[in-house]
């Protein structure tokens, strides 16, 4: 049953995701608990148990099965949701490719957490980055409100006829998943139309699913995923614009803060991208014309115009032997020569004061591991 009235409350990131799922009311939720995501699926299970959510909840025995169950349900045309984190996400890896290849719009919350060993439950982005090339859309949120709003929009974007790809909503483990902030809920109404999956199983019109596919057709299927990923850019803009019109909160592929006249851009993702705004305010008071650019959508990767500005990238995930994942993505798509700061791995504490230091002491084209070879 959908919530009939909008509410104002204070909630954690995990609670906000569960509340968004309750509002959208997927037919099937299949999930397996893992720190720091567990509260999401516990809360959803509680909603199902108390009758405020009509979903069929499947408590599976592993994350691999959770994704397999979501794919199976989705192929019948059902709206599906799951949530995971870290090693749970990696255990799904095979099925993530399968979901994208099968063109099912599964929506998943991934609470970003480091990968062991050493055993570590705190935030970093390596889990999501490691699934970068699976064909999933990926978005990174920075507040409890944004986690809620984005989870709602995720269903409409993933299920759009021009997209029909699975979508991962990423939020920083503990830093956002367990932090309480004010939250204003919405009543979705017809913002989320009924799901129409054109290739849903229909016993009246039998078709083959997952048969052996020759190279020519297989190649076209892969091109079709990329074409949809490109089309998703416009769908995302349209859905975010409609959300803003109906509910008053604006989102985009990136979030810019004091960037208009900035000489230096501080680029980050997730909660770092929000705290960076405080660093920018401090730098501006010193006369340094800094701005914060938060990359919200990671796949499809946004088109950035960084011309004429110095760029400092804070990277919370690393490709060993290559470089910071966000840094390298920006270098591949712009002419920027970023100062790349690798920071916050395994939940490393990074404050807005540290971030302001990255800007003051920037060395374009170089890489620094914060606190290890730091000169800040």
């Amino acid at each position, binding site marked *: 049953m959908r919530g009939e009235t909008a509410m104002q409350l*204070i909630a954690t990131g995990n609670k906000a995701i569960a509340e968004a799922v309750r509002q959208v009311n997927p037919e099937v939720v299949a999930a397996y608990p893992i720190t720091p995501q567990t509260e999401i699926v516990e809360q959803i299970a509680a909603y199902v148990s108390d009758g405020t959510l009509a979903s069929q909840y499947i408590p599976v025995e592993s994350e691999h099965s959770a994704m397999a169950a979501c794919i199976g349900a989705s192929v019948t045309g059902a709206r599906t949701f799951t949530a995971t984190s870290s090693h749970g996400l990696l255990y799904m890896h095979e099925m993530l490719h399968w979901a994208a290849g099968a063109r099912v719009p599964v929506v998943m919350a991934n609470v970003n957490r480091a990968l062991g060993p050493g055993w570590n439950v705190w935030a970093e982005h390596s889990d999501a980055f490691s699934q970068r090339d699976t064909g999933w859309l990926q978005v990174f949120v920075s507040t409890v409100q944004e986690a809620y709003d984005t989870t709602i929009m995720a269903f409409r974007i993933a299920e759009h006829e021009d997209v029909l790809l699975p979508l991962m909503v990423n939020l920083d483990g503990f830093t956002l998943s367990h*932090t309480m902030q004010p939250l204003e809920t919405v009543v979705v109404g017809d913002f989320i139309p009924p799901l129409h999956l054109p290739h849903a199983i229909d016993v009246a019109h039998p078709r083959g699913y997952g048969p052996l596919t020759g190279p020519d057709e297989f190649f076209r299927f892969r091109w079709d995923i990329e074409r949809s990923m490109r089309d998703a850019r416009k769908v995302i803009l349209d859905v975010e614009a409609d959300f803003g019109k109906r509910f008053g909160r604006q989102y985009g592929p990136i979030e810019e803060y004091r960037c208009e006249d900035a000489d230096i851009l501080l680029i980050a993702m997730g909660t770092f991208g*929000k705290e960076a705004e405080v660093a920018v305010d401090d730098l501006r008071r010193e006369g340094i014309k800094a701005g914060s650019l938060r990359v919200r959508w990671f796949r499809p990767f946004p088109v950035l115009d960084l011309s004429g500005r110095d760029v400092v990238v804070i990277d919370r995930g690393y490709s060993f032997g290559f470089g910071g994942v966000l840094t390298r993505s920006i270098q591949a798509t712009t002419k920027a020569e970023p100062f790349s700061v690798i920071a916050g791995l395994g939940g490393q504490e990074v404050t807005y004061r540290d971030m302001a230091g990255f800007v003051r002491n920037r060395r374009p084209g170089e890489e620094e591991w914060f606190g290890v070879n730091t000169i800040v």
Partner: protein
Amino acid sequence: MYEIRIHSRGGQGGVTAARLLADAAFRGGKYATASPFYGAERRGAPVVSFVRIDDRPIKVYSQIQHPDMVVVLDPSIMEAVDIFQGLKSEGEILLNSSHPITFEGYRTHCVDLTGIAIARTLVVAGSPVVNTPLLGALAKVGIISLDAARAAIRGMFSDNRNVQAAEDAYGELVL
């Protein structure tokens, strides 16, 4: 922005205390965040939680470096943890203690939260519930209103003894 650091032991309800306080501040019309620092969770180990209260949306997620107030739910923790770390000069300290303790340079408030919890038979798994009476003490100090404290407690606990315990602490704490 007003920043509060809560020191407790695992199992004492420090994280819930932070959430209740942020909830009460929010009900009082403020912006508030509560962010526990999760370490290796084990019963009895020192735990810290952070609460920020402001008139504007709060964008900071990192740990509080210079709190305006430090709350200590178990004074024996002071043998293991430097509760004064970064505390602003003229900062406030709220201690769960049955006897008065003072620290030079800081305004210190003492209230026997454990005694209040036991008197109200608020004991869960052998641990007196100190976080709900704490809200009453924080109301007395002026961080939140007593009405907001009551509302936040009722939002999380159905047992009315929690509200009574908060009222007890409000009455017992002498400023």
